[in-house]
């Protein structure tokens, strides 16, 4: 789950992680009021969408740029008018763009130094790791590749939490001294609390900056939350903006289906995440292109299978469907009935190949064959992949 820039600022404020002054606005009047609130500072207005590349983006109404310097409250209102309820297209949004329903008016900060700061959950050591670098403001992947010596890591004990000496090591590595070092130590302590308290999977500040007036600020942040822990964070769940997500994925999540949309034309419906990934792989292996990842889970109900089917058929790129079910415990006949029920409800305008294996498979195959629907039965996974690839060509 992703959150907006203004929501990240809300979390920073709550945990006392300093960031540039700013306020969110849903109307030109609110934008002007925010600009008046911070008068005296140099200000920017930014369209709130999850995608990057906002500054160089364009609105479908012809207005250029999703980020602008503003000189007055009147100008804030004027720009807000052109951005709000308009669609912004950036390199990351795709051609359809994203609807802007909020803008943020924020202080435009002068920068002395840029740093990189992140906290992530490290799988290998099973503990949080803090990553810092003096090479801020650029892609950390590039820094890791070109100048790995500029990246410093500090692992944190899962039960003891962040220690003062660990912070001092990082401060020293960043070459910070005096009051700047003190501010950084406080910021990092609070950021660590935020990371743990909110069940973050990743929290990246790039850049973290120092300013000519002697402040340390989190300028741009990226949050990743552990989906498994969202049940205990209703406040974070409330930040979810479904308009930013693939509508197919939103629909799938309502039926507890694991769905990820891709660009290909062969849809798959599979039980189990590992098998679902492997099914995409085998489609590719035989020259096809998977349209999605879809795991119906181990105990998929007839309703789930029907919902999955509708989501798949709602994707206009899809030219064929492969169902691959290893019904270990799950009864293949129940799967077969679910498929037939879905196909009868939605119609079956494109080829469907079904590979069933496992519990009660003969009955399942017989049910499919007796359905009168145009379903191609496959003997095994390779046979299924070959048949669906041939069918869409």
């Amino acid at each position: 789950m992703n959150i907006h820039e203004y929501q990240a600022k809300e979390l920073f404020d709550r945990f006392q992680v300093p960031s540039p002054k700013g306020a969110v606005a849903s109307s030109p009047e609110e934008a002007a009021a925010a600009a008046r609130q911070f008068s005296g500072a140099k200000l920017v207005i930014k369209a709130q969408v999850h995608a990057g590349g906002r500054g160089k983006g364009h609105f479908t109404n012809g207005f250029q740029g999703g980020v602008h310097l503003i000189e007055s409250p009147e100008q804030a209102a004027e720009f807000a008018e052109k951005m709000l309820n308009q669609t912004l297209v950036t390199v990351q949004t795709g051609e359809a763009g994203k609807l802007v329903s909020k803008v943020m008016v924020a202080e435009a900060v002068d920068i002395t130094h840029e740093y990189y700061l992140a906290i992530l959950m490290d799988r290998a050591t099973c503990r949080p790791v803090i990553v810092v670098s003096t090479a801020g403001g650029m892609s950390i992947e590039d820094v890791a590749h070109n100048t790995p010596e500029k990246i410093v890591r500090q692992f944190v004990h899962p039960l003891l939490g962040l220690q003062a000496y660990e912070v001092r090591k990082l401060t020293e590595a960043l070459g910070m001294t005096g009051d700047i070092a003190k501010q950084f130590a406080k910021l990092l302590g609070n950021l660590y609390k935020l990371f743990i308290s909110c069940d973050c999977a990743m929290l990246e500040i790039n850049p973290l900056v120092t300013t000519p007036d002697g402040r340390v600020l989190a300028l741009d942040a990226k949050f990743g939350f552990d989906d498994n822990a969202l049940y205990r964070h209703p406040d974070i769940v409330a930040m979810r903006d479904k308009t930013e997500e693939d509508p197919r994925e939103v629909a799938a999540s309502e039926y507890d289906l694991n769905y990820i949309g891709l660009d290909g034309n062969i849809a798959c419906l599979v039980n189990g995440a590992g098998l679902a990934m492997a099914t995409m792989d085998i489609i590719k292996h035989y020259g096809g292109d998977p349209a999605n990842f879809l795991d119906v889970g181990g105990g998929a109900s007839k309703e789930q299978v029907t919902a999955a089917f509708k989501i798949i058929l709602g994707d206009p790129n899809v030219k064929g469907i492969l169902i691959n079910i290893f019904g270990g415990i799950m009864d293949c006949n129940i799967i077969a009935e679910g498929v037939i029920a879905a196909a009868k409800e939605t119609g079956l305008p494109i080829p469907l190949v079904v590979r069933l294996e496992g519990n009660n498979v003969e009955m399942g195959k017989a049910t499919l064959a007796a359905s009168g629907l145009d379903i191609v039965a496959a003997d095994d996974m390779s046979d299924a992949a070959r048949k669906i690839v041939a069918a869409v060509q």
Partner: protein
Amino acid sequence: MSILIDENTKLLIQGITGSFGARHASLSLAYGTKVVAGVTPGKGGQKFENVVPIFDTVSHAVNETGATATAIFVPPPFAADAILEAADAGMELIVCITEGIPVMDMMRVKEALRGSKSRLVGPNCPGIVTPGHGEKSHGGCRIGIAPGYIHKRGNVGVVSRSGTLTYEAVFQLTQLGYGQSTCVGIGGDPINGTNHQEVLEMFNNDPETEAIIMIGEIGGTAEVDAARWAKAHCKKPIAGFIAGATAPPGRRMGHAGAIVGGEEDTAQAKKRILAECGIAVAETPAEMATTLLARWGK
């Protein structure tokens, strides 16, 4: 021999009265597994299917029945507590089936179990099966949610992060007439109790296991670490499969652990390293068993 469990293992089931736990407790009993106790707080004194005594706490269950292994089926908010309770009761093997446990919970559990005599397998795993010698492998030890009947007792060890891919491998082997010593699902979460390498080490030391199938997926470095260990230490033939070659970077593919982040955790990189370490890599999931047999000289 086998690893971790055999037909005499006394099994406890935590969460035996929940619908998921109850269903699989019944299936394990039907498979011939010695399910000796269940635990559901508040239901102590009752019996599951009129046979299996239910206790309020794990330690009470262990004292009364001598159970040495437990399968955990409790919901995610209570799973970390259930694992710690099992460790506190001195359980030798803790198999956590529960899917959806917060990573922070597992981080703390993992640290708390350091130095403990309990081995944790999972969470978010299908469990472990050591097939029996009866019809359709009846009489074996089935811990978790795997379909028992697809197994056959034999000499191939299977280790995997994914449930359904384990079943695929087992089914392929059994169809070709090759049985399994033990099949271990280590789970799809980023922090788990037992990794690929630890299972390979056990298979390497197990006289009954003659060959191994190792199934992995994108994300993390567990398969790569295991392959490098195997190159130096394992003399038994291994076939490998890595799922997720077509997964887009940065997206979590169902399993919380299946996400491409770095350079060595893509399917392509893992396959390359496995091959460099002498593991026969199956090109498709349909060829896991045949790839092993070719390497094994069968």
